[in-house]
């Protein structure tokens, strides 16, 4: 249950898998994304509401052939350069996209977590999204006749999140902005959770949710593993890194050099931290 991140990725993440590395600005599992790049996974279908730097790195590294998402940007900074390059110029190869709204993606994860084949929402009406996204359909209310948007459940092969704590049995505790991380884990066939610390007993924390060990496949101790994102109670968001990423990622060669040096050129997250000086 409690293994190294290398072991967890080696065992549970396969070429061609559908992965959701979730995190809504808070608790983004960057260390896990790096390990997937290091282990050279290919043909991944990535799913996430808010693909940001971690997904930019995976896309630029050629791991990804398909992306399902609702907002792909560098929050507070601007574009995701590698994502744009993949969509606009097919570099390093074409990226198929499936595009939704946040409300639609949240509904899809919730349906996946609930074992339903689809979910319903008042959504997408009057927008161009249904023209290009085949996974937006409609369903009629059998009571009122109203027509609502219907979206299929998301059930990734692997759900990957970063959390604050686990106990030695593998029960996971997470607090602060919770995003769709609980749903992502519950909707997935397998799940990997990196945590800031592993403790004997989980102390009570206001606003915390607990994921029981029996819905988690692997827990990995990776302190700081969300960086440049943050873990409430352990770190703050490294806004400077988000801004710096814009120039690192703008140029293909600069991006490759950065990945080669700091991700592929390091053995694990601890070496990565040393390499980038955090």
């Amino acid at each position, binding site marked *: 249950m409690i293994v190294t991140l290398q072991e967890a990725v080696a065992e549970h993440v396969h070429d061609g898998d559908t992965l959701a590395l979730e995190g809504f600005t808070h608790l983004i599992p960057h260390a896990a994304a790096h390990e997937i790049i290091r282990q050279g996974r290919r043909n991944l279908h990535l799913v996430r509401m808010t693909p940001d730097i971690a997904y930019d790195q995976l896309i630029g590294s050629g791991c990804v052939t398909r992306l399902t998402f609702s907002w792909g940007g560098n929050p507070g900074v601007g574009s995701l350069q590698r994502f744009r390059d993949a969509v606009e110029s097919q570099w390093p190869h074409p990226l198929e996209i499936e595009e939704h709204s946040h409300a639609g993606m949240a509904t899809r994860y919730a349906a996946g977590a609930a074992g339903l084949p689809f979910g319903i929402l008042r959504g997408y009406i*009057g927008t161009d999204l249904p023209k290009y996204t085949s996974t937006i359909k409609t369903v009629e209310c059998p009571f009122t006749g109203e027509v609502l948007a219907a979206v299929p459940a998301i059930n990734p092969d692997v759900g990957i999140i970063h959390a604050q704590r686990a106990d030695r049995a593998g029960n996971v505790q997470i607090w*602060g902005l919770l995003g769709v991380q609980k749903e992502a884990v519950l909707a997935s066939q397998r799940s990997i959770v990196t945590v800031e610390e592993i403790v004997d007993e989980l102390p009570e924390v206001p606003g915390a949710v607990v994921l029981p060990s029996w819905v988690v496949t692997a827990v990995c101790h990776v302190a700081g593993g969300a960086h440049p994102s943050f873990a409430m109670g352990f770190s703050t968001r490294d806004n400077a890194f988000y801004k710096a990423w814009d120039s690192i990622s703008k140029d293909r060669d600069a991006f490759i050099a950065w990945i080669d040096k700091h991700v592929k050129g390091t053995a694990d997250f601890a070496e990565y931290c040393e390499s980038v000086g955090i």
Partner: protein
Amino acid sequence: MAEYTTDELMIVNAARQLGALAAAGKRQCFVGIGLPSTAANLARRLYPIEPVLIYESGCIDSKPTRLPLSIGDGELAETSDAVVSVPEIFAYWLQAGRIDIGFLSGAQLDKFANINSTVIGSYESPKTRLPGAGGAPEIAASAGSVMVIMRQSARAFVDRCDFRTSIGYGDGKGDRERFGLRGGGPKWVITDLAVMEPDPDTCELIVVALHPGITREQVVAATGWHLRFAHDVPTTAEPTEIELDTLRALQAA
């Protein structure tokens, strides 16, 4: 009289509108990061009846002491009355009609206040791939009213958006009703040059106020459709010292 930028003018005017809405009981404001968040946080500091800030990251009644860079800054969660999951914020709060004002921006805005934040050019072979929809489609559909804040230019204010990411008035008056949308749609578009509102007869955006020192010709030149003006087009009030000092202190923190 104080010096100020056109961005400051835009933000101050948006904050004033939010303040007036809050005073009229329209307090719940669903806020995006960037210009909307800046204006909403300014309004919170300027007016005795504060807007209630709700962020799509699940923060309800957030009272940040400094401007968040991202929608998920720790500051937002720590200063909120309640933090809920993302599925909940969209289902129980936005979709259920609990939001008075959706506060949006975008890359393109058209004459019926539809917004594009998806692509410039064609969807299949975009000239520029933008971040995408985020929360905008359902904010634009379900919020009681929508306020838009955007820097004005002929490239951004277009006759028809390359992609309709979120709906304003669709192809004109009556479309929202035909679609069965529950929210009232965009009521105010605040730019760095002017304030626009939908013409009650056509729902096409028309200029209802100009910022100090801005001419009709400047606004027309910065608009990609044949722009019309309301019968009376007053000039918005100059930003006050208090407004500017508060805004600058907020941005410096």
